[in-house]
C-alpha cells in the first residue's frame, strides 16, 4: 500500500520525473480514467468522501468549495481554476518541495480539479522567487501538452484545458485568495469584499476556485486509490498525509510527508533530529508565521491535525513549524514577525496599516530596554483591535496570533526587558 503518495517520486537534489517516468509510475492514469469514465460530479463526490481539507492554511473542505461553483444551463460558461503557489508565509517551504520535486503531479491534480468544476482555463500563481519551480513547471506543462494531457479534447473526452503559469511580482498578501485574483487581473493585490466569494464571482467576475499546491497534488491519488485508502492514511479524524516541516535550531531542518495527526514530538525529535547541541526547545509556531505559539511543556504529544491543534489554541496552518530555542529572545522574534507584517500589509484598512507598525515600534522599544510597564497592556489591546472581524481580511488577525500567544507564554520575558531595561538575551546569540 502506498503510504507517502505526495513524495513517492520526489528525489531531493535530482531532477524531477519527466513525463515518461511519471507515466511509468501510473501518472496521468487518474486523468485517463476519470475524463473517460466519470462525470464531474463523481470527482467531487470522491473527494468529498475522502474528506480532503485544504492545505493552504485554513483547512476548508475541498469538495464543499468545489460544490459552490454554479453549474447547469444558467451558470456562466467560463470558469477558472487557480493554483495558489504564492507560498510567502514565513517559515513555509512545502509547496516549493512539491513543485520542484514532481511538477507533473500538480498538473495532473489541476486537470482533475478543473474537470470537476468545469474550468477550461487554469492558472498557476507562482511567486517570483521560485525560478527553479518555474523552470520545471514550464517544462512539465510543455510535456503534458505534447502528451495530450492538456489542450483540446483531452483523451477524446471532449474536455479542454489550458494551464498558464503566472509569475507574481511579489507581495505576501497575494496569497490571500481574493488579493491573488486582483493580482492576476494586473491590479494592486488588495483583498476584495466578500461575499461574493470567488467560487461564485472570482477572476474577471467568473466562478473561480483557488486551491493550494498541496491540496491539488492530492487529487490524483484520491481518484486512483479511493476515499477509504485516503482516510486510512491519517492518524486522527483528518485523512491523508501532510507535509510537515521544521526550521530553526533543530539538528536537521527539513520537510517530511507523514500521516496527518503525527505528534509534535515525533516531528521534532524523530524527523528534525531534536534540538542542536546546547539549545533547548522553548516554543513552536506550528504552521507558518500567522499561527499561535505552542510550548513543549503542554504540547509535545499533540497530534498535528486541524482539530487537535485548534483545540490547543493554535492552528495547523501550513504545517511547517518554526522553532524558538532558549537562547533566542522571544521579544526579538515577535518584533521580527511584526516587522514582516507591517511591511507586507496591503494598507487598505486602518487598523492593520497603522496598528501593526505601532506594535512593531513598541516591541522594538521593549527589546532595546526602553519599554514601559503600560506597553504590555497596549500590546494586549492591539491583539483585540486587530482580531477577527475588525479588519478587511484575515491578514491582521493572523499577525496577532503569534503575538497574543507570546504574551501569554513568554510574559516573563516581556517583563524582564522592561524592569531590567535591557534584553536579557543580548549576549546569548
Amino acid at each position, binding site marked *: 500500500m502506498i503510504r507517502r503518495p505526495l513524495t513517492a517520486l520526489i528525489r531531493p537534489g535530482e531532477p524531477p520525473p519527466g513525463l515518461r517516468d511519471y507515466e511509468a509510475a501510473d501518472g496521468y492514469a487518474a486523468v485517463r480514467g476519470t475524463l473517460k469514465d466519470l462525470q464531474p460530479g463523481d470527482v467531487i463526490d470522491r473527494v468529498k468522501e475522502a474528506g480532503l481539507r485544504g492545505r493552504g492554511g485554513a483547512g476548508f473542505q475541498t469538495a464543499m468549495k468545489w460544490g459552490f461553483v454554479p453549474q447547469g444551463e444558467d451558470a456562466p460558461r467560463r470558469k477558472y481554476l487557480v493554483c495558489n503557489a504564492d*507560498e*510567502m*508565509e*514565513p*517559515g*513555509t*517551504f512545502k*509547496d*516549493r518541495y512539491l513543485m520542484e520535486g514532481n511538477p507533473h503531479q500538480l498538473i495532473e491534480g489541476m486537470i482533475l480539479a478543473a474537470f470537476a468544476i468545469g474550468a477550461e482555463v487554469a492558472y498557476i500563481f507562482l*511567486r*517570483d*522567487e*521560485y*525560478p*527553479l519551480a518555474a523552470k520545471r513547471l514550464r517544462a512539465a506543462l510543455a510535456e503534458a501538452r505534447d502528451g495530450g494531457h492538456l489542450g483540446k479534447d483531452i483523451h477524446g473526452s471532449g474536455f479542454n484545458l489550458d494551464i*498558464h503559469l*503566472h*509569475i*507574481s*511580482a*511579489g*507581495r*505576501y498578501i497575494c496569497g490571500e485568495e481574493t488579493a491573488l485574483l486582483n*493580482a*492576476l*487581473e*494586473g*491590479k*494592486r*493585490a488588495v483583498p476584495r469584499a466578500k461575499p461574493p466569494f470567488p467560487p461564485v464571482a472570482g*477572476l*474577471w467576475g467568473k466562478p473561480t476556485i483557488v486551491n493550494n499546491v498541496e491540496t491539488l497534488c492530492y487529487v490524483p491519488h484520491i481518484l486512483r486509490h479511493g476515499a477509504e485508502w485516503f482516510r486510512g492514511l491519517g492518524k486522527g479524524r483528518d485523512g491523508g498525509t501532510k507535509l510537515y*516541516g521544521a*526550521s*530553526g*535550531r533543530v539538528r536537521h*531542518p*527539513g*520537510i517530511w510527508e507523514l500521516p496527518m495527526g503525527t505528534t509534535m514530538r515525533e516531528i521534532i525529535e524523530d524527523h528534525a533530529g531534536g534540538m542542536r547541541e546546547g539549545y533547548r526547545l522553548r516554543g513552536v*509556531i506550528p504552521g507558518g*508565521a500567522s499561527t499561535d505559539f505552542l510550548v513543549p511543556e503542554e504540547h509535545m504529544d499533540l497530534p498535528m491535525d486541524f482539530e487537535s491543534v485548534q483545540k490547543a489554541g493554535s492552528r495547523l496552518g501550513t504545517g*511547517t513549524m*518554526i*522553532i*524558538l*530555542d532558549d537562547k*533566542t529572545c522571544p521579544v*526579538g*522574534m515577535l518584533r*521580527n*514577525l511584526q*516587522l*514582516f507584517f507591517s*511591511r*507586507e500589509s*496591503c494598507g487598505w484598512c486602518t487598523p492593520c496599516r497603522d496598528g501593526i507598525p505601532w506594535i512593531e515600534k513598541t516591541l522594538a522599544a521593549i527589546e532595546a530596554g526602553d519599554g514601559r510597564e503600560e506597553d504590555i497592556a497596549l500590546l494586549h489591546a492591539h491583539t483585540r483591535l486587530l482580531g477577527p472581524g475588525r479588519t478587511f481580511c484575515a491578514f491582521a488577525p493572523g499577525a496577532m496570533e503569534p503575538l497574543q500567544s507570546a504574551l501569554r507564554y513568554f510574559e516573563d520575558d516581556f517583563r524582564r526587558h522592561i524592569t531590567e531595561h535591557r534584553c536579557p538575551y543580548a549576549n546569548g*546569540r
Partner: protein
Amino acid sequence: MLSDSERKAIEAELPLYERRRSLCIEALKIVQEHRGWVSDEAVADIAEFLEMGADEVDSVATFYNRIHRRETGRHVIYLCDSVSCWVMGCDRARDRLREKLGIGFGETTPDGRFTLLPIACLGACDRAPALMVGDELYGPLDPGKAEEPLENHE
C-alpha cells in the same frame, strides 16, 4: 516608446488574460527585464500601450516588491530577513554585508555592482540564513562570511 522586443514580449502574453489592462504586471516585469528598472518614462510607455493612466500603472508598480522604481546595481542581493532566517542569524549576515560592501538595505555600491534589499521569506527555511542573487539561492550562509556567494556575480 516601448521597443519592438518589449512590445512583442508583452503581446505574446495577451491571449493568456481576459483584458488588456490585466497585462500591467507582466508588462512591468518585461520592461524591467529589458531596462533594468522601471523609470517614470517606462511607466508612461506601458500606460500608453495598455491604454491606462500613468498613475494607475504607477500604483501597481509601487505595490510589488520585485518591481524596482529606482535604478539598481547590476545584481540585486535579496537577503531573507523573515523569522527562520532571523533566528539563524540574518542580522549578522546583514551587518557583515554592510561591512564588506559599505551598503545597507536599499543602497547600491558606488561601482554599481550590487544593490542590497531585504526580502520576505524565500521559502528556504531549511537552508537559513539564505539569500538570493539573480536565480541563485544560497544557504545556509555562514553569517560571518555572508559575502562569499557574491564572488559568483561580477
